[in-house]
């Protein structure tokens, strides 16, 4: 016997994980969009006239985000200039297909698209990196490089903000990971809806309270075109465990996800506790709690034929530096080009490294 929509007379198609409500297709679309709108308004995410880059991977989250923001921008006249920004890691057979998806999204949503490659930014594709470091450590590289790539790409485009498709499940997952790692500094930051304030390029997560289930259902019923695959290089095992745990919890009690985010938000650190100061990298100007940022260390390792540099202990880096074996040139040439392109904002860039 079909269940009826809790808001109208039509047939329900979805049980909402957050509330348990049964909704029909149209009421679900409306509820989904209005909640994102409310999140945007409550957190005051945007101002009229801003240029906003949507980090677009061709996957479900960023595809639905692009569609939803485009819809809300028109419905509520946010007056935003939306741009799709994609990172090409240079993984044959992986990004090729997902970039095709982003290109179709560009047409479908009539949004401008900029693709920025690891090759342009770092001089290395992920395929090249894997040849050097093997399959065991490549996720370290990809993760570190990807975070910066979006920021660097956004700065080249001179946008005001970046939005990413991180959803409630992702954030709950990150809260759990930071608790397990005992990383109190990141734990404090990872539930923030906007990171990198104070003159830096802000990064926002309009889907902070949006469940992955609803994002996928929205894409399904709207027939949105997205791409899904496993990265052909090994997945992040640690995140994988946290993910499985979150999904198991959700199956038992769907509100767990929001509850975990809420716990993360409520976590406070005593005033006396010294948290690592977020300075900037002496080589590239990117935010870093170390003197040289992780990307610069990894890159130096690649360029000097020491691919394990930056994966091992930090004191090894210091030792090699003291011996004059690494960081002998003053600056990283690849990064300097970009910095010169936009001196002001690059020097102040302090986007957080929380994803």
């Amino acid at each position, binding site marked *: 016997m079909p269940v009826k929509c809790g808001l109208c007379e039509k047939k329900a*198609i979805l049980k909402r994980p957050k509330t348990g409500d049964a909704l029909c297709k149209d009421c679900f679309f409306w509820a989904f969009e209005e909640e994102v709108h409310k999140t945007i308004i409550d957190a005051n995410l945007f101002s009229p006239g801003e240029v906003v880059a949507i980090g677009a991977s061709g996957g*479900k989250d960023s595809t639905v985000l692009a569609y939803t923001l485009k819809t809300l921008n028109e419905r509520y006249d946010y007056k935003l200039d939306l741009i799709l920004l994609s990172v090409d890691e240079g993984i044959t057979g992986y990004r090729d297909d997902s970039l095709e998806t982003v290109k179709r999204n560009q047409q479908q949503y009539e949004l401008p698209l900029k693709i920025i490659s690891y090759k342009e930014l770092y001089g290395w594709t992920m395929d090249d990196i894997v040849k050097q470091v093997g399959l065991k450590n490549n996720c370290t590289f990809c993760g570190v490089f990807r975070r910066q790539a979006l920021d660097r790409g956004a700065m080249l485009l001179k946008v005001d903000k970046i939005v990413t498709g991180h959803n409630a499940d992702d954030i709950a997952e990150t809260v759990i990971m930071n608790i397990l790692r005992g990383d109190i500094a990141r734990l404090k930051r990872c539930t923030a809806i906007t990171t990198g304030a104070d003159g830096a390029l802000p990064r926002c997560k309009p889907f902070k309270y949006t469940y992955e*289930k609803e994002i*996928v259902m929205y894409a*399904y019923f709207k027939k949105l075109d997205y791409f899904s*695959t*496993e990265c052909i290089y090994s997945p992040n095992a640690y995140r994988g465990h946290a993910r499985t745990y979150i*999904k198991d919890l959700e199956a038992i009690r769907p509100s767990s996800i929001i509850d975990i985010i809420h716990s993360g938000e409520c976590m406070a650190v005593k005033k006396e506790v010294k948290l690592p100061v977020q300075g900037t990298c002496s080589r590239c100007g990117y935010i870093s709690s170390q003197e040289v940022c992780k990307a610069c260390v990894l890159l130096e390792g690649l360029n000097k034929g020491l691919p394990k540099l930056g994966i091992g202990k930090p004191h090894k880096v210091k030792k090699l530096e003291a011996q004059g074996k690494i960081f002998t040139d003053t600056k990283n040439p690849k990064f300097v080009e970009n910095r010169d392109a936009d001196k002001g904002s690059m020097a102040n860039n302090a986007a957080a490294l929380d994803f």
Partner: protein
Amino acid sequence: MELVVSLEFSGGAELLFDKVKNHEVSLPARANGPWTIKHLLVWIKDNLLKERPELFVQGDTVRPGILVLINDADWELMGELNYELKSKDRIVFISTLHGG
């Protein structure tokens, strides 16, 4: 009587089925009682799954993070494992566990 239903795997779930998204299947008559989703999952595991069954089933249900739709409605509204299959039903499995 055989029961013909269509199955669809997407969102990355198809990777466990030789990348084939759509399957039209005939289920043999069951001696005792109707076909339910619970029986269907066992049948899928034994007859269609090509690799890593633990990424699709967990215990006697789907792995958490895989969404199930029965004739375009959330299976959570349809009785989940106890839903009784009818001829021409369309069951969709969407993975949310794959990269976005």
